[in-house]
């Protein structure tokens, strides 16, 4: 006979999980900070390589909209998991993952357009920076989507309760991080 015991998190464990995630977020922000500094230096050294709106800013603008919407669904998922509502948590996580996939699909369209025009990372320093910064950001989105799908499956199975929901909460923090990074990438690379 199998016994299932509902997981319960102590206040101390919750604090530790949250603190660990915030430390990870801090290291990620510093990781991207180095890229921004590199970009500003490159841009000053070679002003002729970049000019406003040279990349597809319309697609990037739509992607910004998609990420902002996804964060609404992510916060809904976090709230639902705190209420122990597995199906609502799962649905919101799936919509968030769908938004992430839409973001990646549009990014692929954008990349393919540039590659068709022969604009590759080796074209010049601007495109090296552009592909590096957006590529790493896209990788973060992809990892987020995989985690969201796993969590959605677990939520559907009823793994998250009122007393155990830290994975969803921590994933929410991660998703907000990728959104914040995009808020800086979008204007700096696409608009100015």
């Amino acid at each position, binding site marked *: 006979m199998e016994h299932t015991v509902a997981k319960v998190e102590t206040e101390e464990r919750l604090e530790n999980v949250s603190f660990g995630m915030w430390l990870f977020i801090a290291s990620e922000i*510093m990781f991207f900070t180095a890229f921004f500094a590199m970009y*500003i230096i490159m841009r000053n050294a070679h002003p002729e390589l970049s000019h406003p709106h040279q990349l597809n*800013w319309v697609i990037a603008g739509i992607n910004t909209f998609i990420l902002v*919407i996804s964060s609404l669904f992510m916060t809904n998922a976090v709230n639902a998991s705190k209420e122990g509502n597995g199906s609502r948590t799962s649905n919101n996580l799936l919509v968030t993952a769908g938004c992430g996939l839409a973001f990646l699909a549009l990014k692929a369209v954008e990349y393919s357009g540039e590659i068709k025009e022969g604009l590759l990372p080796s074209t010049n320093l601007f495109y090296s920076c552009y592909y590096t910064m957006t590529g790493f950001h896209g990788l973060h989105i992809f990892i987020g989507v995989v985690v969201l799908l796993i969590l959605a499956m677990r939520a559907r199975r009823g793994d998250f309760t009122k007393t155990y929901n830290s994975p969803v909460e921590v994933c929410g923090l991660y998703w907000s991080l990728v959104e914040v990074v995009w808020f*800086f990438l979008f204007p700096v690379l696409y608009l100015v």
Partner: protein
Amino acid sequence: MSNKIANKTAIFIMLLAITAAQIGLSFVNLTPMGNILAALLLAASEAILVGLFFMGLNDEKRLIKITALFPFVLFCIMNGAVVMDILVFMKH
């Protein structure tokens, strides 16, 4: 709960408005460095909104607030130093 949802919707609208402002400002010539600084300031305001309301920093303990603030201070120091360096270089 409904109050919380209303707050989140208000933040959502503000984020969209700031993005629209960023796009609008990019068509105004504020000098290349001015445009970058304006874009970074608007992006920072979006990051603050997301941090406070979507990531729940508003309700977190002091240790978490400091941990979250720390990389932004480093971000400002590093990029501020780069911008200052460029401005001094341009003067000479």
